[in-house]
């Protein structure tokens, strides 16, 4: 105990953070378990195997060792890296906490078994807590309403990192952010850390003692198979480690005491990271792992093996967590009701199992409480009661699955505080311990957190603590249910399931429930029974306490909050903390060059929960860095910006996803209170899960795309890369020659060609291949789209201003803008009838919106994005038109006149330039369709205005040129597309002088340009007359004949694997073959200046990243 207490302090601080991270990441993982249906009821009968929702293919990983998580990691040779991360002593978080001391007292809650008096019950035991928790104002009981105010504030603090504490507890729990590395990847990649080989029990214990709650190890004992050791939140100074056997049943593995079976240990772990099930608290990977965005990072960590635990990486992460979490700790502490359990923890597995059972019961109760807490305490209570009935069928106490994965962490914290805590807090440390052991309290917390607005709940608890009276009563009611607790638990589970946010949890819970039942009946059956019996006894006791806790949950929470805050922060806090902490940590890692994208992902991943809470913002910081580097003004937008560059859709999707996630989070809360019943149904749960998973998947995909886009952008910016150099040269060339063009079309076409060529090059280059994630295959068109997006950002974004300036100059020179301005007044003066308008025209508000769209369109640099905005503006016009004739579809007869009307009231000068920009710079491979039509219409309308006859009748006949403009434009697009399809960079050549890698210049060449002509260009460009051109490829220099066509020579070379050299005639550079940029994926073509450097860079990159990670 003593040790524990000490440890607890440290852990408390650190754990929360990591926990949070894990949880965040976990959510996604949670999705994994889908197989296990939520329907617990059915499961019970069958043994685990039967149930095995997951039974799926993967054979059980029963043998832990087998799983060598390493597989994924192998590639890395990170070992070297580890060193860098010298194990820094994790300074135990000094912060608050002398947690150990207090808890014990609390534990005693003699609590009257009488459940009924839910809130009040908290009585005695709680009182102490209350005293401790004074922070929470009074209100206690009504966990809901009263607590919220006080709690919310606290919550906010805690969640500060995350966000939104107050009102929406929902947010915290959300598992929104998608980790770049999915949880499974993280698990697999870090297996050597959490599944070390050859660890003795002592070693395991010593490691665990210094970790935060939720951190776990899986170790094998000779004959015993695998054992899962989980660091429990240390309350009352008793550091607890819960040991659970990982049993294998046929091809499945499951925790001793749980009926949830999994294909392998990874799935099992990933599930328990999201869902506590029978554990006292959900598992949590160290933050350093959950925040790892890149495989390299994981490899580094993995290479450290058990040394990781003592490394700076781990400690730093914890520190971060601690810092962030401090405020939130309160809540976290609340959750950690496991004080009683601590002793139990020491106990054997069997005890654990018992605990688990208990916890389950507790959980159920907590769940109920949690639900109730979220909304109105009374309602909750009622709900819980109702829920129990359904649950009863399931009987399994454990059934209720842990809170939803992602949000679960956060949610748990909150939730736990609400229901369980209140009661538990009241009951005292002892109860807490029980909860911790059972995990019930935590579970409850988690559940509550995940499901509903954790924040609200937590607050309640606090209040309850302060004013224990209220909350307790409800809790007690639950406690009375003791026997029914399980049922209740099930009900709760169901309720949880109902909550969308908890989908994962639900699933998990459902599965667990099923599995549990199954296992009980089957393998675990006996043990389970024993456990149950023991648990029952314990449960009864606990029930009382729990009841108190549950009932008082909120109060307890408050109480706990106070106490726990300091001590327990770890477990319950983990979720909240995690979110916050994760953010901080990520940045460092992200620092690395490529990190940008990864970072984002990390943020997303680790920040899933964070996102929900608004974590996204934090992650951005790291991500932002990259963006900034990109030089994009909006760099901060990290994720957002990237996507935005080209694809609005991506941003929109993100937004949608976010919304969905948010909704999910919110849903839980909502569902809990009112629609609990509905939610309970397995189906709803399943749907919820599916939705969650889907969103997770989508988010993941998007993040992948973004990451790749970001990487390409980074590459384009990297002056040391061939591609980056090429981009730079092309940009310079464009800027240099921009003023030479006599027509806007010519000017824009050249730029478009440049982009097309760069795209073509990149698509064929090894540089891009090197950036692709092996596990993520893109269809060619998708890849092209991503590259296009990245190029828009790399090339068009910086060129937008110069382009507009040039266009404007051209248009001013040819008088078009003046003409437009003059006729605009005429059109403006035309009556609607004169314009041919027969429908309603946009009113002021609509005009305002259209104006905004068009203005944004003007400011946008991506042609695609511009067109999207144009379509949106047109849509507003359509909407306005239909005001006068709802339901009627308007064709061109109606639309064009109104379009004219609108344009006459817009900034025609800008639009004129915008239209050209869009038409000519648009990705030729993109089928415009609708965009083409409205572009044509806009263009036509502008031309019409330009030639508008003052007499208002009809415009003069458009010039032949204008009439054909669209057609010619389309033909240009077609031609460009054909060129694209050929995939060769025709019009630009990079020539080095006098040797490879030296002084490269990008020269424009025509298909008919001969080497002779190219040499003349070189002479002018390099100011060296008597040199000659040769091409270096395949390790040899080949002098070029004056009559050869430059483009042909280039096309005859493998893209990226050649280099044109302009050198003294007698000097045939025998450059090191290495210089030739041949194909090495990483190293771009030799053309680049520093081929060698590039190669070096590539290899080196990882290091910097690692370092950054480490440092951070």
């Amino acid at each position, binding site marked *: 105990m003593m040790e524990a207490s000490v440890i607890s302090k440290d852990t408390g601080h650190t754990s929360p953070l990591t926990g949070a991270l894990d949880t965040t990441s976990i959510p996604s993982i949670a999705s994994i378990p889908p197989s296990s249906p939520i329907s617990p009821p059915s499961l019970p009968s069958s043994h685990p195997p039967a149930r095995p929702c997951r039974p799926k293919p993967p054979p059980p990983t029963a043998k832990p060792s087998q799983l060598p998580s390493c597989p994924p990691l192998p590639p890395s040779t990170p070992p070297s890296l580890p060193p860098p991360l010298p194990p820094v002593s994790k300074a135990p978080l000094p912060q608050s906490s002398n947690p150990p001391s207090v808890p014990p007292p609390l534990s005693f809650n003699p609590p009257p078994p009488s459940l009924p008096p839910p809130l009040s019950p908290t009585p005695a035991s709680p009182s102490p807590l209350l005293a401790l928790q004074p922070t929470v104002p009074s209100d206690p009981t009504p966990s809901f309403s009263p607590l919220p105010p006080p709690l919310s504030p606290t919550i906010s603090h805690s969640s500060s990192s995350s966000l939104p504490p107050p009102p929406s507890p929902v947010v915290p729990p959300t598992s929104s952010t998608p980790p770049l590395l999915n949880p499974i990847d993280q698990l697999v990649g870090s297996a050597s850390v959490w599944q070390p080989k050859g660890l003795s029990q002592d070693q395991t214990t010593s490691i665990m003692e210094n970790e935060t709650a939720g951190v776990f190890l899986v170790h094998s004992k000779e004959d015993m198979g695998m054992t899962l050791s989980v660091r429990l939140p240390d309350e009352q100074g008793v550091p607890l480690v819960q040991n659970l056997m990982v049993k294998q049943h046929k091809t499945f593995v499951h925790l001793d005491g749980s009926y949830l079976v999994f294909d392998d240990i990874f799935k099992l772990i990933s599930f328990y990271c999201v869902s506590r099930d029978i554990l006292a608290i959900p598992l949590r990977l160290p933050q350093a792992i959950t925040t790892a965005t890149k495989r390299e990072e994981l490899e580094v960590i993995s290479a450290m093996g058990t040394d990781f635990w003592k490394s700076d990486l781990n400690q730093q992460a914890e520190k971060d967590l601690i810092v962030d979490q401090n405020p939130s700790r309160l809540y976290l502490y609340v959750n950690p009701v496991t004080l009683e359990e601590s002793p139990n923890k020491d106990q054997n597995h069997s005890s654990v199992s018992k605990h688990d059972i208990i916890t389950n019961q507790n959980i159920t109760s907590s769940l109920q409480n949690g639900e109730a807490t979220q909304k109105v305490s009374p309602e909750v209570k009622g709900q819980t009661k109702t829920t129990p009935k359904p649950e009863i069928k399931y009987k399994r106490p454990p059934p209720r699955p842990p809170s939803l994965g992602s949000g679960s962490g956060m949610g748990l914290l909150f939730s736990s505080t609400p229901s369980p805590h209140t009661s538990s807090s009241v009951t005292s440390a002892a109860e807490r311990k029980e909860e911790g052991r059972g995990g019930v309290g935590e579970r409850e917390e988690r559940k509550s957190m995940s499901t509903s607005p954790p924040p609200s709940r937590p607050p309640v608890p606090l209040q309850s603590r302060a004013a224990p009276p209220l909350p307790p009563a409800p809790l007690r009611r639950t406690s009375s249910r003791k026997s029914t607790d399980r049922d209740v638990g099930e009900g709760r589970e169901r309720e949880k399931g109902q909550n969308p946010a908890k989908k994962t949890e639900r699933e998990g819970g459902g599965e667990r429930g099923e599995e549990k039942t199954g296992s009980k009946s089957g393998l675990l059956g006996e043990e389970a029974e024993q456990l149950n019996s023991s648990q029952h006894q314990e449960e009864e006791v606990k029930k009382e306490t729990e009841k108190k806790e549950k009932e008082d949950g909120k109060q307890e929470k408050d109480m706990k909050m106070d106490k726990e805050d300091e001590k327990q922060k770890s477990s319950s806090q983990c979720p909240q903390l995690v979110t916050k902490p994760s953010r901080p940590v990520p940045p460092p890692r992200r620092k690395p060059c490529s990190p940008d994208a990864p970072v984002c992902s990390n943020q997303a991943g680790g920040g899933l929960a964070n996102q929900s809470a608004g974590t996204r913002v934090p992650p951005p910081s790291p991500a932002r860095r990259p963006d900034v580097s990109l030089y994009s003004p909006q760099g901060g937008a990290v994720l957002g910006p990237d996507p935005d560059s080209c694809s609005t859709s991506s941003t929109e999707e993100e937004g949608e996803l976010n919304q969905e996630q948010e909704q999910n989070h919110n849903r839980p809360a909502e569902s809990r209170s009112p629609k609990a019943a509905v939610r309970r149904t397995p189906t709803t749960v399943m749907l919820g899960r599916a939705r969650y998973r889907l969103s997770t998947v989508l988010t993941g995909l998007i993040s992948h795309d973004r990451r790749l886009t970001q990487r390409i952008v980074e590459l384009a910016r990297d002056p040391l890369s061939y591609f980056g150099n090429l981009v730079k040269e092309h940009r310079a060339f464009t800027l240099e020659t921009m003023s030479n063009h006599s027509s806007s079309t010519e000017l824009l076409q050249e730029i478009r060609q440049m982009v097309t060529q760069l795209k073509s090059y990149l698509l064929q280059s090894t540089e891009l291949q090197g950036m692709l994630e092996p596990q993520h295959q893109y269809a060619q068109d998708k890849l092209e789209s991503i590259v296009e997006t990245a190029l828009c950002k790399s090339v068009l974004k910086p060129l937008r201003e110069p382009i507009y300036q040039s266009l404007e100059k051209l248009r001013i020179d040819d008088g078009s803008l003046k003409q437009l301005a003059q006729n605009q007044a005429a059109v403006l003066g035309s009556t609607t009838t004169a314009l041919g308008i027969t429908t309603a025209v946009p009113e002021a508000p609509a005009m305002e919106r259209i104006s905004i769209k068009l203005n944004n369109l003007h400011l946008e640099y991506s042609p695609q994005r511009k067109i999207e905005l144009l379509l949106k503006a047109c849509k507003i016009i*359509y909407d306005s038109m239909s005001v006068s004739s709802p339901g009627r579809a308007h064709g*061109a*007869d109606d639309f064009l006149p109104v379009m004219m009307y609108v344009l006459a009231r817009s900034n025609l000068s800008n639009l004129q330039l915008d239209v050209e920009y869009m038409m000519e710079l648009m990705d030729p491979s993109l089928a415009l369709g609708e965009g083409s039509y409205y572009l044509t219409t806009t263009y036509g309308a502008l031309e019409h205005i330009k030639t508008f006859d003052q007499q208002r009748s*009809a415009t003069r006949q458009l010039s032949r040129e204008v009439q054909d403009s669209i057609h010619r434009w389309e033909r240009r697009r077609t031609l460009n597309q054909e060129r694209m399809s050929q995939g060769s960079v025709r019009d630009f050549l990079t020539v080095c002088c006098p040797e490879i890698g030296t002084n490269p210049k990008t020269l424009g060449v025509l298909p008919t340009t001969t080497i002779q002509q190219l040499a003349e260009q070189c002479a002018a460009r390099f100011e060296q007359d008597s040199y000659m051109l040769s091409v270096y490829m395949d390790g040899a220099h080949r002098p070029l004949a004056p009559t050869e066509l430059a483009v042909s020579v280039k096309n005859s070379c493998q893209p990226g694997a050649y280099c044109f050299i302009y050198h003294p005639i007698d000097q045939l550079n025998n450059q090191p073959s290495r210089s030739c940029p041949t194909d090495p994926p990483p190293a771009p073509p030799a053309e680049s200046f520093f081929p060698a450097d590039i190669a070096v860079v590539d290899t080196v990159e990882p290091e910097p990243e690692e370092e950054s990670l480490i440092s951070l």
Partner: protein
Amino acid sequence: MSSRGSGGRSNGTLPQTKICQFKLVLLGDMAVGKSSLVLRFVKGQFDEFQETTIGAAFLAQSVCLDDTTVKFEIWDTAGQERYHSLAPMYYRGAQAAIVVFDITKPETFERAKAWVKELQRQASPNIVIALAGNKADLAERRLVEYEEAQTYAEDTGLLFMETSAKTAMNVNELFLAIAKKMPKTDTQNPTHAARHRGVNLQDPDAHSTRACCGGN
């Protein structure tokens, strides 16, 4: 009618191997029912083959024809005389055109003839032009005789049908007839071609629809 359109989007649900995309422009005087005609056609098709558009001035619709999916991008034009000068921007490059007139308004027929003339002079040489005498449901007010238009169409090498956007008469037939007349060189998404052919659940539809259309 609608059943026939089993065209698929490029999505590729189609069993067909070939996907041909064509730009079809609608010309005709104001209020002759250009938009209505197209909307009737589009709405009569399976939604799954439609592309959502922001308005009716541009519509996209696919129809299945044997082993080919013909995707029409339908560009509507403003019929007002004052916007006549913009028409070339729309029909240049179009592979097909439907010139619409109102059988109750002779002047629209004259205008239609002017469009045809312009198209034959300025549009793509291979453009497929269809003449549609719309508002056939108002036969009692007919002022343009079927024979007159039919004769004109034959003389100028046009597809001709009298249609009614209101009753859907000949609407699908018109578009199918155009689709059949289009060169079937695959214009896009060669990748789709790779798709399995055998699956044709839709083939039957296509055939049946044709039968229906067969009316022509």
